[in-house]
């Protein structure tokens, strides 16, 4: 059991670091989604299913999705900007 806990903690630390070090925001959103999921698992280890459910819904799904949509929006704007320049 303790080995499992240590493994989850280290995985969280590694995944969080990976999120920061992924410099391309599009890839980062995917890594962040994975990180959200790992955090959710960690919260299950902590016997906090309420929090785990929230974390997975928000951290692994809603937030990465918002990031993707914001990026899509920026790209769309960039497209229209290019078109205006032409």
């Amino acid at each position, binding site marked *: 059991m303790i080995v499992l806990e240590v493994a989850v903690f280290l995985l969280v630390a590694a995944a*969080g*670091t990976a*999120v*920061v070090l992924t410099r391309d925001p599009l890839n980062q959103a995917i890594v962040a989604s994975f990180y959200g999921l790992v955090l959710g698992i960690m*919260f299950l280890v*902590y016997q906090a299913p309420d929090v785990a459910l929230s974390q997975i819904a928000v951290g692994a799904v809603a*937030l990465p999705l918002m990031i993707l949509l*914001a990026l899509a929006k920026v790209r769309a704007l*960039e497209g229209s900007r290019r078109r205006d320049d032409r």
Partner: protein
Amino acid sequence: MRFLPYAVAAWLLLVGLYGIVTSRNLVHTITCLSVAQSSTYILLLSVGFERGGTAPIFLDVPVGTKAVDPVVGALTLTDIVVGATVSALLLALAVQAHKHHGTLDPEQLKPERD
């Protein structure tokens, strides 16, 4: 092991701040902020954890069973909502910034000289 989760929390805070400080893309900055924020989830839940405790839900287990602290759970729930909503607002601001300045690079968004 006695302090591992606390150390993980401190590490995530500093790594998140490092990401914010060195970021070249606002969307990246915002995601790094959410990593720094997640350090508080871990810290809160760690201080309320009791080894051998069940979840504080007494549907299948009787009251009196050793359970983890329900308060930190409630606090972390609030914390997660706060983190997500601030991120959403920041993303909207980033989209606006891109519209006005044509860039997401915080280096090019410095204040104008007076």
